């Protein structure tokens, strides 16, 4: 059994729940309190990927970069994203402006890592009705991603909730699986 390490980044506007998603995935915890992240914080989590390469089991150490959220005044430092093979682009379903910026963040990430993969997480999905959520996912999928040259770089748009755990493991693991495929 071999272990490899891959860097992934969580990117998005401030207050969308990047830190909370990592906390849920790595520590299985959640707090309602908002504490804004400054700088960058790295977490590690090793996942076992058995189904990706059937000939051998593979341990993947994910180096998860919790990058300070972008604000009107401060954008994301490109050095943080360098060398990342994957990115989770996070938005808050209760703040439509954060959803509008998903495409922008993806473009930025892919400009630094043209061979990386991105997955969009529409977080705080527990706060709105299922119907509205489905509409949002549809909108993001059809309208936002038409502009990319290489649409398959965006592997999915998922509704997540760090609070109740919806699809949290799923986004990290599908990104992990995709990154290993490409290696």
């Amino acid at each position, binding site marked *: 059994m071999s272990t490899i390490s891959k*860097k992934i980044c969580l990117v998005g506007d401030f207050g969308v729940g990047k830190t909370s998603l990592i906390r849920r995935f790595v520590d299985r915890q959640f707090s309602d309190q908002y504490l804004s*992240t*400054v700088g960058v914080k*790295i977490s590690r989590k090793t996942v076992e990927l058995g189904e990706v390469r059937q000939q051998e089991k593979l341990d993947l150490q994910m180096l998860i970069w919790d990058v300070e959220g972008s*604000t009107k005044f401060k954008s994301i430092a490109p*050095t943080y994203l*360098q060398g990342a093979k994957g990115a989770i682009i996070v938005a808050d379903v209760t703040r439509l402006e954060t959803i509008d910026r998903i495409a922008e963040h993806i473009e930025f990430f892919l400009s630094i890592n043209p061979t990386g993969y991105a997955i969009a997480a529409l977080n705080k999905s527990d706060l709105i009705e299922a119907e509205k959520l489905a509409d949002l996912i549809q909108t993001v999928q059809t309208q936002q991603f038409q502009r990319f040259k290489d649409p398959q770089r965006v592997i999915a748009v998922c509704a997540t909730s760090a609070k109740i755990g919806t699809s949290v493991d799923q986004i990290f693991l599908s990104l992990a699986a995709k990154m290993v495929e490409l290696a």
Partner: protein
Amino acid sequence: MTQRQILLPDHIDYLIVNHSLAITEMSAGVKRFADSDHEVKIGLDVRLGFPELIGSEDSLLALLSQSSNHSPDSFTLKGMARTEQDGSQLYFDLFVRTDFPNIDNLLIFLAEVTDRMMLEQTLVQSSNETQILLTALANSRDYVDKIITSMADALLVTDTSGAIKKVNPAAQNMFGYSEAELINQSISFLITDIEVLHQIGQCAVLTKAELCRDLEVICLTKAGKRLTVYFSCAFAGDAPEQDLIYIGRDISDRKKAEVKLQESESLYRDLFEDAIELMFEHASDLIQWSRADGRLVYVNRAWQETLGYSDPEIATLSWHDIIHPNCQQHFQQIFASVLEGEKLDQIVVELVSKSGEKVWVEGNISCKFTPETGQPASVIAIFRDITARLIAEAELRQQKAQSERLLLNILPESIAAQLKQYNSNLQPNTEAIAENFADVSVLFADIVGFTAIAASLSPIALVNLLNQIFSTFDRLTEKHGLEKIKTIGDAYMVVGGMPTLRDDHAEAIADMALDMQTAIAEFNHVTQMNLKIRIGIHSGSVVAGVIGIKKFIYDLWGDTVNIASRLESHGIPGQTQVSAATYHKLQMLYQLQERGMIQVKDRGEMLTYLLLGKK
């Protein structure tokens, strides 16, 4: 390699790594920045202690290659966070440069920036929170604006002096003015009722109550049309200089409709009352019309005459005032089902008149419902006075019972029932009612020497004497559950075991005989007479029935009857003589003495016994 000492400020440490990123040199304090400090050792891969460098290998190696002038000469990662064991945060910046002139090595500087980053965190936190709040506020304002714009009710906001500050499209529509025409105008421009405005002004000055009041006022539109508008007025906020919010709805159409409805209602009522006059007033039935709560609205003349209440009294009456106490509970059930929509026919109710007399009525009660709401509106009852009929019926019943009692005096109940059935079938009673009973006991009693007594008494006194004795015997037959058949002169005939069958008929007859003897002894004691009776008892089968169609009498026939009679006539005065058949039934419980053989007419010799008493 020459050993050097790099002199640095306290908050900065360093690492030197070779082209394969293995640590070759480090400062003493560098471990405090490591993710796992035990993995920061000379010779180990720097990425073990500093995982931030994973993924940046290309950038780092680019520094070493220096292949082109365009290559960057440094690599920087700022604001890296570590969580200390006590949970506090440590932040550091990481700079990488070539270790000139050792061209194969990279020099990594780590500078602690915790204070700066903590300050930044506080700043970013408050800035972000404010931003989120502002967005939420903007959203909710948009939402409120959307509601105000799209609401069907007119909305006006004025300051305390009455100047209009805000209007919504519904208000512009209602009054026919544009927004520009209304803003800064006084509210009196629209509401013409000075008195009302004055009241609102008072309210604004005197109270801090959130809700001022609801008003119905006449307003004037731009086109000069008068509108009835229902306003609810409220203060906006708690500030001393509060704005007033008016939310109004044009109820002119509703008002008109109400007036029309009232007009048509009263018209309808007039028509209806006329119809009542014509149709109901002279009806012989009792008609009463009440509200759903039971209060009387109308009663007709027959009702008034029957129950005796005057018009003013009727106005105060309710259903339950005129229901007799006996009937209240029953009536409540009736009334409840009527209100549920049931139409009840042929209901009998006991009413009570003003003078307290019970009045029985029969008829129907039904409820009318308001078509719009489905709520019960009124209850109408049409009754017939059936008091006289009920009294007549009661009398009839009484007479019938009386005649039945009489009939039962001469006939057993089961036989009487059969007779009645024949009669009610209106068929001539051609067939005798006769029935065979296999096992009964027959008793004959006769007063000894009655002929001699009869000669010494007047006929009246004689009948009185017999009546006294036989009445006593009658009571004894009832006591023992026996059937008296008849008296023949001074003889008394009684039977046990029929028409209702019983197994202990011989015992009952024996007890009867003993009691009869005792009764005669008591009678003698009281009257100072010396009467004696002979009793004969025999058990066997008889035929019983009624013969003829007039003066019915229920009688018995058969050998058993004849033998019992013979046993009596051949008996001993003051004694009870029983046959062998009866003796066999009694011997276990009674004292009996063999009398011997006696000669019985048409029968020859019979062995008989004397009944002495109970064992």
